[in-house]
């Protein structure tokens, strides 16, 4: 089981790598989304907010999410640190992503653009 601090660090690593990729920011300009991250074995909830191509991390955000990503702390940390491609846990049901088909695909795209396969 990963600690809350590790989950937070993985999300920050994801954010830092996203913001370091100007092409990715350009690609996502206009795709404004609130993505809630729920960790099954911790009560803490994190929120990734994409606005005008930029990405920020919030805790205790009251914003209504467009998408919810849910998994245990090991899976969530592994995916956001790029140690684990999201596809396999997604297909096994260990990582669930709710949202429109296009949004789910877009989030997978962003993750692969940051971390690769």
């Amino acid at each position, binding site marked *: 089981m990963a600690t809350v601090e590790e989950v937070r660090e993985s999300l920050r690593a994801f954010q830092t790598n996203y913001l370091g990729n100007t092409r990715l920011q*350009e*690609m996502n300009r206009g795709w404004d989304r609130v993505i809630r991250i729920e960790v099954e074995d911790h009560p803490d909830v994190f929120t990734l907010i994409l606005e005008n191509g930029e990405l920020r991390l919030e805790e205790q955000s009251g914003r209504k999410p467009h998408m919810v990503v849910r998994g245990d702390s090991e899976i969530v940390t592994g995916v956001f640190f790029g140690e684990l491609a999201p596809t396999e846990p997604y297909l096994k049901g260990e990582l669930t992503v709710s949202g429109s088909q296009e949004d789910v*695909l*877009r989030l997978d*795209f962003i993750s692969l653009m940051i971390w690769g396969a």
Partner: protein
Amino acid sequence: MAGKVVSVSLGSSRRDDRVEATFLGKAFEISRVGMDGDIDRAEKMIRELDGKVAAIGLGGIDINLVAKGERYVLRDGLRLKEAARVTPVVDGGGLKDTLEREAVRHLAARVTPPLLGPPTPVLMVCALDRFGMAEALVEAGCPVVFGDLIFTMGMSYPIRSLEELAGLAKRLLPEMAKLPFNLLYPTGKEQEKPSDDRFSAYFQEATVVAGDYHYIRKYLPPEITGKTILTQTITAADVEDLRRRGAAWLVTTTPALGGRSYATNVMEALLVAILGKQPEEIAADDYFFLLRQLGFVPRIEKLN
């Protein structure tokens, strides 16, 4: 007795059809059966047809995507191909690479006035499922916008070179190819949703709109006056819809059979049945030779 060729499609059953035709003196019954997006039902149907028909086409799904010589195997497509042990199963990929390159050359050099050429801006809705056509359009000197990201995930990011497209494919497809195919491509009822015009600007900038018709239809604007549509599977209702929206020309890379242009998977299955070989034994030159014998040329129709 007629040779039977069946296209098992993940698309809507509303587009089902059946036609009988004779090619090089042999009679064929060609049918298309839509599975309404149900991949399990498609797999079962292929198992039932295996050994009973001459060839099976896979519609609404690809087995492979190709970019600059790299081949990416789609997990769901492979699953359906492997459902048959005896009868050859094809997705149209082999034929796309020959027929569609040839179709672009035909429009650039053998039609007066040419419908394609160096100044003709082209919107290719998705290039990864027909890289041969994409390369031929670039070779013809057309400035091409590849809409793979726009049309698969609604991202307003036009790709303007084959190199960028191939680079993105290398980064993304090894993982994305494992995803359920219905996340990547409209299947079943998704194919019947009304068009969404949020990407109209890309259509307006182009003179020719090329590629898979389900993707074209997905974001087709209400008005496309003067545009040429270069595609394949298209029904009489689709043709009327394009006419109403003002399209000038319709070019389909496969010939009309019974008033309809069938998908390349159907035509490839037909050619495999005529040749009586396994797809792995067929070279591009075999397809070229047979296409010339059959006199297959693009169907060109003036709509407005």
